[in-house]
């Protein structure tokens, strides 16, 4: 499931090259969240208390409280504070977890007092951090800005569990909102990558894998072995810091895990007598070959062999935006095959939109619909092409949520005979894990992504058309009559989604699950760079590709 066609470029691009121009609000929010660890670190339980007592006037109430705290503490020695930093970070993470997404009391800190301390505190990450603030100005950053202010404070009051019980084990740690608190070992390129991963700027299993490897390449380039240790031993731990940071931004994908494992294996196999410069060069070469062998060239091979399966007159159904499926379809199109593509997409990521645009501008005939319309889209389908996040050892496909539905619709349509389901997947995405359902292993994204939607431009019941159309027929009519309706309709619009206050609404839980598992029976063929396989052959190929 990839959006980024050239992921290689993204992670290393400098911070100002953000995909979206930063808006005002997220920047502000970023400042707040950056300063957030400070007061909390000093007094972990404190921020929650004032919020509890005076929920409606959170901002006003907490500001004096925090300011007072800041006053009390500012005379305290900086030395002691630095010592307490580690414990503070831990406490903050705990607090974050409790809040379940609402970084609420961060709202009103005395901006002056902590600022000075922050400088000393976040010394290493500071310059990067400020630029990173703009990065969050993507979908997710702006999405969170709204509910955090007021809603999260009230959450404290109710303390209702907003985690869906069945998936309770998946919530774990709240995703990182900021680079603050990241260890000083973490390389700036990795800091940037982490936030890009978190914001889905780099999205899709292979893209994430490539981006991680490229970032690690820069880490290795900037790395010097400390005196008294060997590269083979120390670099692994050094990388582990980067990996830990990345995994707090977004859980690592299977492909990332496999790539990291291969890299670590290679590092540990480096002879300690090899000079450092030479070892670093060979490591960078290893990363480059890994990327080209396992992903770039593999993608070309897969696209070539999968395109052979496309015949004239086919109607290809695909789900979301897999880069490898895109490549396959474009390859087949370039071979002069005449076929139609029907893209099924889903909220909240809408990965299929990019795919639809790319294919359409390439000249293909594209139909775009959401997964709600699957039964119609599948009616005239002749083949289904799917991308993969991972293939598990029992032959099941672990992919963007909704994939299983598409595969099932194709298989159940006509007894499963007519619509073959073809999965395009590099072997780097194979795992020796086994997935029996999509509950045990999965990823939960921020539920707020489900809430925020762009209001479509409505022609009816909206102020603008009402104001313009009504006076037109009746010149001197009743403009007054339209006014109340205007005020009625504008209020919900300004409020955004009816679910906006879901955190305060009792008995309401939101679930934004990322993946699902497609049974092996629904998959006819897995196209890999090592050939086409039935799903049952996944473990064999995985064993072979990892051993050699």
């Amino acid at each position: 499931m990839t959006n980024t066609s050239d992921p290689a470029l993204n992670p290393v691009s400098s911070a100002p090259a953000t995909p979206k121009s930063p808006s005002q609000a997220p920047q502000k929010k970023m400042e707040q969240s950056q300063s957030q660890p400070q007061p909390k670190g000093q007094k972990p339980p404190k921020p929650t208390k004032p919020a509890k007592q005076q929920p409606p006037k959170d901002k006003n109430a907490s500001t004096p409280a925090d300011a007072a705290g800041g006053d009390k503490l500012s005379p305290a020695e900086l030395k002691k504070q630095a010592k307490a930093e580690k414990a503070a970070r831990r406490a903050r993470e705990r607090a974050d977890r409790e809040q379940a997404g609402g970084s609420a009391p961060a709202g009103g800190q005395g901006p002056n007092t902590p600022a000075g301390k922050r400088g000393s505190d976040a010394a290493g990450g500071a310059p990067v951090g400020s630029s990173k603030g703009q990065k969050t100005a993507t979908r997710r950053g702006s999405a969170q800005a709204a509910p955090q202010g007021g809603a999260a404070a009230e959450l404290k009051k109710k303390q209702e569990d907003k985690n869906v019980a069945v998936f309770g084990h998946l919530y774990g740690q709240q995703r990182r909102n900021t680079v603050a608190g990241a260890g000083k070992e973490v390389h700036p390129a990795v800091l940037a990558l982490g936030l890009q991963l978190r914001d889905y700027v780099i999205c899709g299993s292979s893209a994430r894998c490539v981006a991680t490897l490229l970032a690690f390449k820069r880490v290795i380039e900037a790395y010097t072995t400390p005196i008294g240790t060997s590269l083979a031993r120390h670099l692994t731990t050094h990388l582990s810091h980067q990996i830990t940071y990345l995994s707090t931004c977004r859980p690592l994908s299977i492909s990332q895990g496999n790539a990291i494992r291969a890299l670590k294996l290679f590092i540990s196999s480096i002879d300690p007598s090899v000079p450092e410069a030479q070892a670093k060069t060979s490591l960078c070469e290893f990363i480059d070959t890994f990327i080209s062998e396992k992903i770039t060239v593999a993608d070309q091979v897969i696209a070539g062999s999968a395109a052979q399966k496309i015949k004239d007159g086919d109607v290809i159904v695909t789900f979301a935006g897999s880069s490898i499926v895109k490549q396959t379809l474009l390859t087949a199109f370039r071979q002069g095959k005449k076929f139609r593509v029907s893209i099924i997409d889903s909220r909240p990521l809408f990965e299929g939109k990019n795919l639809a645009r790319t294919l359409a501008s390439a000249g293909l005939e594209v139909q775009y619909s959401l997964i709600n319309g699957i039964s119609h889209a599948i009616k005239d389908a002749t083949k289904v092409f799917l991308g993969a996040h991972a293939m598990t050892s029992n032959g099941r496909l672990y992919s963007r949520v909704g994939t299983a539905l598409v595969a099932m619709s194709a298989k159940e349509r006509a007894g499963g005979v007519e619509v073959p389901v073809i999965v395009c997947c590099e072997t780097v995405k194979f795992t020796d894990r086994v997935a029996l359902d999509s509950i045990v292993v999965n990823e939960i994204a921020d539920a707020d992504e489900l809430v925020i939607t762009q209001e479509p431009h409505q022609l009816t019941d909206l102020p603008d058309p009402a104001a313009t159309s009504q006076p037109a027929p009746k010149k001197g009519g009743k403009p007054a009559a339209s006014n109340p309706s205007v005020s009625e309709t504008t209020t919900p619009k300004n409020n955004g989604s009816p679910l906006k206050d879901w955190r305060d609404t009792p008995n309401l839980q939101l679930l934004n699950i990322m993946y699902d598992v497609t049974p092996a029976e629904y998959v006819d063929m897995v196209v890999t760079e090592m050939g086409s396989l039935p799903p049952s052959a996944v473990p064999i190929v995985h064993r072979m590709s990892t051993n050699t």
Partner: protein
Amino acid sequence: MATADPRLSKATEPFDIVATYNDLLRSDPDLTMPIAAIEALVLLLTHSPSSTISETLDLLEKSTTHLKKSIPNPIGLSAGTDLFQRYLITTLQRPGQLGPAGDFNAIRAHLLSNSRLFIRRAKESRDKIATFGRGFVRDGSTVLTNGGSRVVASLLQRAADEKGGPSAVRFNVIYVLSPPKRNVENTTAEPEGLETVRALRAKGVPVATIPESAVAYSLGKADVVIVGAEGVVENGGIVSRMGTYQIGLLAKAMGKPFYVVAESHKFVRVYPLGQYDLPIEQHVIDFKTQEDVDTAKQQQPANASSTPLNDSEFHPDAVDFTPPHLISALITDSGVLTPSAVSEELIKIWF
């Protein structure tokens, strides 16, 4: 390809691979298509004066494509040619005296002797299969089979031979006979498999012959279905003579085990997604109106008199694809495999 053909025919003028292949098939009734293809390629190598590795491989490549193009259904054949090519490449890449650095004449001699060994082993595999598959024919059971598969025949005969031995097997056979290949030369050809029927009856095995239309009717009396295959494809399904797929479907519907007997040299690197995804052109379904029939008749009035209807309605060499989920197990010379193990075997050969 079309441009390469004249050169190719010139190069292989002294040696016609297609004719050799067909001769081999005709001369030895026990020969399967992949083995005939391999044998033809070995003969080609002995006749051709190639002196370098790349020349050899190039010649092999060209002859293979030529052969594949000249045969209407190259699926079974390509299993053999692919295997042979793969074998050659791995032998040539192996380090040592016979590797790329070695003396080419020695390599060639080695290749040829090994290729013969390869062919002999492939022929022996039928016996091996019979040993493995014997246990599937139980005492008192009724076996339903079809076609003219030699492996099935040898398996059944092996089972019948045991009669009176320590593991006396008494079994019945229901043999599905399809209409014979009838062409201009011999209009009185007997259906494929009748020979096996006679051999089995001679051994005292009661055999009933039924037409293809009676499979569903007879399947209730059968305990097990054993069929042969022309090629075993990557997903564990089989490409086999027309009519096997429907037997498979019926066996599945009736809950009868459906076993496929095939040598492992029939494993072919093809991955069909369905009946119409086979890499060959078949015109089994041919829609016609009366007008089309009339014009066809007018065009060839001389030939039409013989058997016009049979020509158009029956395709003796047509094949269908039996998907893996209908197959209970494949009895091969590398053991009894589930369909999903076929891809494992194929991957082992290819990587």
